[in-house]
């Protein structure tokens, strides 16, 4: 059932293992441990039990009727990953990887985080399994996501602010990789998205694929048919890969990934790696990348810290090139409007990241450019963003 990118870890030409030599044995060990875990009924049973009793799966698929009326399209279903424990899809991956770390006998966990959702989810899994946890977070993100920093600390994690480079997710990832190179013998790196060297893009996708498996079953129960359109926001792209994977073989289902256009494509202030990047190598894999003509990685920008990343998962690069998925983008202002609109219409505060997907559905719906039924991955809740958006004032209303 699980499609494999093969031993070389390639999705088409993308992916691979472009890392310092020091990490090669750890990646081999992880790939072997993951393969063994998938063949171990006890591992799978424990993962399923935790998903049900601890994470709170399955999450509901909710029909958003007032959103439908506002967007002029129906039906629209929201896959409620915001209702997972810790408030986002990220925990699907961190519980799975913590189980793998325990299986490999690694007592120390490191992670990078942007919005802080992956950091919180990692700290949570580490508390559950009594693992030491260090989370790297760009100092700019520490500033704009202070609530999540406090949550991680409550959960027993050490948050290390990263001052290098652009002080955001990309630099936190560099610092996590440096830590891993240095402490590889006793440390597992719980990477937070479908990025990084093989086997991470495969492992993270597989742990997130539960989203789409449930959504597919649920929408068939509700509508008696598959959705016409499946939509998710894309930074690194883990909730989108999780949502898309189960539908990838259903050719009649359109897959739409929504990147962050920030202040607009062409402004030099976006995070749309697929929309305006070129293939390149960052953080261990070949994929689309925002970069200058010299191959220097360009700073990304988005109002959503979790999308503020100049790269994207290699499987998304392949899905775009092959034409199986379509990638669009939504700017800061539209995302902020969607962030304010959904609470008023449905009583649900979405994460700013998720608001990009909702904004695209609303805009494309009003223009009659999206086919129903629509299933949107509501990847996380927006409590973490309330303070930040309130500081932005009325700009989002424009």
């Amino acid at each position, binding site marked *: 059932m699980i499609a494999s990118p093969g031993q070389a870890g390639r999705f088409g030409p993308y992916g691979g293992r472009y890392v310092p030599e020091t990490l090669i044995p750890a990646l081999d060990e992880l790939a072997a441990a993951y393969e063994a875990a998938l063949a171990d009924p006890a591992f799978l049973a424990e993962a399923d039990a935790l998903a049900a009793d601890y994470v709170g799966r399955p999450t509901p698929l909710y029909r958003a009727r007032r959103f439908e009326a506002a967007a002029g399209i129906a039906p629209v279903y929201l896959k409620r990953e915001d209702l997972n424990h810790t408030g986002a899809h990220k925990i699907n991956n961190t519980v799975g990887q913590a189980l793998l770390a325990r299986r490999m006998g690694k007592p120390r966990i490191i992670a990078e985080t942007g919005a802080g959702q992956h950091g919180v989810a990692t700290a949570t899994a580490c508390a559950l399994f009594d693992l030491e946890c260090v989370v790297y977070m760009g100092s700019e993100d520490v500033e704009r996501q202070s609530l999540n920093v406090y949550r991680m600390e409550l959960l027993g994690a050490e948050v290390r602010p990263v001052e290098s480079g652009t002080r955001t997710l990309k630099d936190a990832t560099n610092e996590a990789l440096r830590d891993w190179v240095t402490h590889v013998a006793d440390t597992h790196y719980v990477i937070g998205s479908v990025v990084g060297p093989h086997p991470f893009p495969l492992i993270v996708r597989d742990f997130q694929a539960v989203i789409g498996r449930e959504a597919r079953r649920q929408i068939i129960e509700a509508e008696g048919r598959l959705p016409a359109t499946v939509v998710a926001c894309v930074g690194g792209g883990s909730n989108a890969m999780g949502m898309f994977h189960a539908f990838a073989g259903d050719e009649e289902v359109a897959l739409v990934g929504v990147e962050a256009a920030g202040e607009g494509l062409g402004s030099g202030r976006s995070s749309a790696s697929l929309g305006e990047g070129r293939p390149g190598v960052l953080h261990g894999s070949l994929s689309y990348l925002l970069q200058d003509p*010299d191959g220097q990685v360009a700073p990304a920008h988005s109002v959503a810290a979790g999308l503020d990343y100049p790269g994207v998962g290699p499987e998304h690069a392949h899905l775009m090139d092959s034409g199986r998925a379509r990638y669009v983008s939504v700017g800061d202002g539209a995302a902020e409007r969607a962030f304010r609109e959904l609470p008023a219409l449905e009583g649900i505060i979405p994460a700013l990241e998720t608001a990009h997907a909702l904004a695209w559905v609303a805009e494309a719906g009003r223009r009659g450019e999206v086919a129903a039924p629509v299933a949107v991955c509501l990847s996380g809740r927006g409590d973490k963003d309330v303070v930040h958006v309130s500081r932005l004032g009325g700009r989002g209303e424009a």
Partner: protein
Amino acid sequence: MVPGRIARRFAGLAAEGRAGFIPFVTAGYPTPDHTRDLLAGLAELGADVIELGIPFSDPMADGPTIQRSSQGALEGGTRVDDVFAALAELRRTSEVPVVLFSYLNPVYARGVGTFVSEAAEAGADGILPTDLPLGADPALEARLTESPLDFVRLIAPTTSADRVREIARASQGFVYYVARTGVTGARAELRGELAAEAGAVCAVSPVPVAVGFGVSTPGHARAVAAACDAVAVGSALVDRLDGGGVAGALALAGELRAALDEAGRSARRG
């Protein structure tokens, strides 16, 4: 095939019974003038190979010193063209072998074929991509192997014995043994096991073995030289450049050169 500058230099070292000295320079840091003077000075005081670092925005294998020098070089406007120009200028006065130290993306972005032909034209002898381990991209690796540049590979303390042999066989010019599991950066002390590990790599390597990462002082250089063919020093020189300018960095380089000459060569290839 005619042996290149790197092979000739290592053959000369072996004949003289000396260990090689391989200093690292971040191109463009803190200014292009510093790089020009540093390269000329290193060549003059007897560097055997110079590692010329192409600054990269995301140096994930580097510690704070080389992160800072890379970022400083980029903020100063250093482009890959400037690195090639600095190299071409050095070539007007020196035949010292030069290996370009680079993350893969600047090479990839330029097009591998274009990059290697421009680099060779400028006078580069080798290329050492920090994030292209053996087997990661066979087609790209083959292009580098077949290029006019020597494709220098890295071996780490975590590399298995079988893989050490494969990497050493694949490496051209010399092979680089990473002295510790970690990132680049000066250190007060080297690990006790380092000499034995480097010796084990030498025992199976058909090409000379250079040791680097953390080698910082003349004492370190002497200790490491006993177990390998050459010693690479990076962060300690960049730190000295920050503290004492080009003259300070060259003074340290001179001490390292003298220490290596004093240590003589390893007994293994005698």
